[in-house]
């Protein structure tokens, strides 16, 4: 079985399972909200430029940027971990800066440029950070990896731009991509498999330093 077939069949099983639970657990009328409630759910048009492609959708105002990317733009590379800004799995780049996409509303980003893991590189044309994560085995289960990689790319940029950090002895000076600096700056990305040391190795390679 090719990797694609496996992914499709796994999704199919999960989708079928979800439908099955819904059908047995809820009476028919509860599964469909009354029309008048649905009509009252406010929506707004949102235009996003995601990985270089601009498109516009009408979204429920409650839709987070994370859910917009995953459920509406169908870019499921960005992961939902805690959905509360604690784990970093949802990290994406907005106008070049890393944020937790779970803690912001899509409507707040009308017109913004978003880069997700899918936009950093392609399987046959990897971003150097993606290639380094593979080379250094910077993951085990892989769930936190898209967020780790987006964050890692932004961290090296932040160091280059001179953004200060908690571990700098002299905050009036610039920072360099040492292991201590990168660890501190990556603390918003949790990896429960514990691939941290390999992640620092990967980042060090891209930064051109020794971990």
């Amino acid at each position: 079985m090719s990797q694609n077939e496996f992914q499709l069949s796994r999704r199919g099983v999960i989708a079928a399972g979800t439908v099955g639970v819904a059908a047995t657990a809820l009476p028919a009328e509860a599964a469909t909200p009354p029309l008048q409630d649905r009509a009252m759910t406010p929506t707004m048009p949102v235009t996003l430029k995601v990985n270089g492609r601009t498109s516009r959708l009408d979204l429920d105002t409650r839709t987070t940027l994370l859910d917009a990317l995953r459920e509406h733009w169908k870019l499921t590379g960005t992961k939902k971990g805690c959905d509360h800004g604690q784990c970093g799995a949802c990290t994406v780049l907005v106008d070049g800066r890393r944020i937790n996409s779970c803690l912001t509303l899509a409507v707040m980003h009308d017109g913004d440029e978003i880069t997700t893991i899918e936009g950093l590189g392609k399987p046959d044309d990897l971003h150097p950070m993606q290639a380094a994560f593979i080379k250094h085995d910077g993951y085990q289960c892989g769930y936190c990896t898209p967020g780790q990689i987006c964050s890692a790319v932004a961290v090296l940029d932040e160091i280059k731009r001179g953004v200060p950090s908690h571990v700098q002895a002299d905050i009036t000076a610039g920072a360099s991509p040492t292991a201590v600096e990168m660890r501190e700056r990556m603390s918003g990305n949790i990896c429960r498999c514990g691939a941290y040391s390999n992640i620092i190795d990967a980042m060090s390679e891209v930064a051109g330093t020794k971990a």
Partner: protein
Amino acid sequence: MKAFTYERAESPAAAAAAVAARPGAKFIAGGTNLLDLMKLQIEEPVHLVDVNRLALDKIEPTPDGGLRIGALVRNTDLAADERVRRDYGVLTRAIVAGASGQLRNKATTAGNLLQRTRCPYFYDTNQPCNKRKPGSGCAAIGGYSRQLGIIGTSDACIATYPGDMAVAMRVLDATVETVQPSGSTRHIPIADFHRVWGDTPHIDTNLQPGELITAVTLPKPVGGTHIYHKVRDRASYAYALVSVAAILQRDGSGHVAIGGIAPKPWRVEAAEAALPQGAKAVATRLLAGARPRPDNAFKVPLVERTLAAVIAQAKDAA
């Protein structure tokens, strides 16, 4: 999350008027705390006024030699500003000691001041909490109170103000500038911004309904050694158990404020006169009237020891 309507504000005064006009309306800027609370249905605004596109994102010098920080300046940008790093180092230090890189990129200066407590009983909607639901009681009193307040608390609430940035702003004597729904403006000293909430812990600050923060101003730099020492359970990305913001001068005088122990950044100006006598003398005055609980009684000696570490660090630096 409960459904809400949404608009983008055209001006600060229009934003204030829009929120004042709709009971249950709220401003949204970075959203990193508000959306977290909305997902848990602790906050349930019916209408959001997005202030992100207002031109409040500049850091500018003031005529009297200070700095005026726009309400929408992101935490990362405030910490990275060359003038802040050089003249108000305690502020940069406090900001980079808080949250994560992703959150600091989004969180704003005004929103950081307005973040709500991280008391676990405030977050657990199955528990009574006078801050979340006035009159329902306080599960933290008699509960597990290790993280919670030791001073300025009340029989209604023992939560703490959780932030770092405001502790530095307190020691810097910052002023919060606001606009009212009527369009008139107000200047609130940071000392009077957060409340010691007594029996009304659901009201965190002295802002009026609809009042919008437009800027925070810092007075002329006072020199000295700037230190922010945060004691926490992890080396990074954790709230303070105790934090000390300090500006200490060569002659031993200075200013100190404490985070993690009270409903607001805790500063007692009269205690600062005791700085030349050392940490114990300062801590005794700072914590007069403290009411620690068995789980958080450790914070009393921890304040003194953190102050001692800060005073020693300043001597080394001088």
